[in-house]
């Protein structure tokens, strides 16, 4: 993707029928640090890499509780993500106030998608630079959705976004068929394995990652550091020379479960880079 004369405005089409500003917004998501989501019939696990800028600073919050039954993991411009989380929380609170029942996840993601679409069709706005993995529970079961800056959204069995997410997606593509029937513990284990893939050799410890779970009878909550470290030790996945050779190298992004991967409109992903400045 290179600069061209159709990319100044979000309201300018290119002759090939592309909105470059929207695509650039999706690039911002790819530059953010990785976030992963997986779901079974009764649980959804969200996991993300949490790297602080320097030893002196705290790390960016990337997983937000939206309601007891919904949580979101973000990648990209975390400030945009924070604002959207606040919107989602308010929507849940207002829905509960009116109907005295939980806002179904599917409804929330549509509202979110419509909100994102507005920013792709106003000359005085810019698209949100954040991708959201929305995990939640409602009467029809456990759901994982991915909301894109373009205003598109898809439901997934498992998905990964952000930098080096391709490595995680490769792992998830191999294992996703077993997720639906997976137990809560195995789901978390798979999340940790997938997360480790994105670290590309670095040691997986609870200080670089955040895990959150929501399930039947279990409100959305972020697991505390000790629990995560205990799980990592239990699954013996800290070391990079793991018994399971998950390094499958570069693979074509095949579709994950329900829908075709949204992909970017024609633009080939420009190789993986480290966590970009914009993530913080």
């Amino acid at each position, binding site marked *: 993707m290179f600069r061209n004369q159709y990319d100044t405005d979000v309201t300018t089409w290119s002759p090939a029928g592309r909105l470059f500003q929207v695509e650039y917004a999706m690039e911002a998501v790819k530059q953010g640090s990785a976030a992963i989501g997986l779901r079974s019939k009764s649980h959804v696990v969200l996991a993300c890499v949490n790297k602080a800028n320097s030893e002196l600073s705290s790390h960016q919050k990337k997983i937000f*509780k939206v309601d007891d039954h919904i949580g979101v993991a973000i990648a990209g411009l975390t400030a945009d993500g924070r604002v959207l989380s*606040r919107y989602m*929380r*308010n929507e849940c*609170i*207002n829905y*509960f*106030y009116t109907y005295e029942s939980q806002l179904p996840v599917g409804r929330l993601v549509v509202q979110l998608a419509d909100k994102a679409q507005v920013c792709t069709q106003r000359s005085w706005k810019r698209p949100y630079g954040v991708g959201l993995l929305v995990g939640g529970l409602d009467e029809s079961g456990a759901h994982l959705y991915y909301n894109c800056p373009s205003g598109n959204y898809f439901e997934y069995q498992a998905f990964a976004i952000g930098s080096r997410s391709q490595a995680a997606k490769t792992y998830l593509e191999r294992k996703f068929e077993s997720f639906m029937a997976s137990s809560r513990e195995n789901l978390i284990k798979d999340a940790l394995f997938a997360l480790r893939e994105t670290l590309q050799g670095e040691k997986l410890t609870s200080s670089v990652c955040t895990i959150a779970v929501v399930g039947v009878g279990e409100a959305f909550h972020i697991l505390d550091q000790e629990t995560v470290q205990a799980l990592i030790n239990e699954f013996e996945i800290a070391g990079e020379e793991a018994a399971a050779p998950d390094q499958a190298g570069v693979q074509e992004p095949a579709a994950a479960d329900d829908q075709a991967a949204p992909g970017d409109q024609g633009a080939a992903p420009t190789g993986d880079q480290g966590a970009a400045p914009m993530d913080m």
Partner: protein
Amino acid sequence: MTKQQANWSPYDNNGGTCVAIAGTDYCVIAADTRMSSGYNILTRDYSKINQLADKSVLASSGFQADVRALQKVLAAKHLQYQHQHNKQMSCPAMAQLLSNTLYYKRFFPYYAFNVLGGLDHEGKGCVFTYDAVGSYERVGYSSQGSGSTLITPFLDNQLKSPSPLLLPARDAVTPLSESEAIDLVKTCFASATERDIYTGDKLEILIMNASGIRQEYMELRKD
């Protein structure tokens, strides 16, 4: 030419009485469960008590539709607070929130007579009493509702709180033990039930202390 009067009121009084007593390490909140309208009883089993947070319990008599709406607004505000601050609201914070929420509708008030009870930062019992538009005060005990005129003089006799104007500031909490306070509350309601037609059926008591919250019930006269 006499002034035209409204032939419809947006309010109704569903009656009932609420009482709360603060102790050194507990708080007792009680309310009867009768809901009436005029001379009729609508139900004998309606709870006027609502737990707003870990350490805050609200008891409200008056127009129960407004009470319910008020409870919902406070619950929503509390959820927002929890999202922002990652913790539950303290009882004094909830007290201020309730006051602001009531005053917000200064010109079409919630017809709710509230007593907020809970534990403060030090674990001591606290009781806040309100009027319909949010004027509030922390006290050692309080009673609101149709039976309050019968109960308050009795509580004054048993528990008289030091005035908040006194210097040095004196503790508002009662020296009574938890079980003595519960017995006192039961006595209050048994007496109020005798003479107030809107109070009776059943008494619901919530006792809050360091170990948590528990509920007790007592039958009251049904006439």
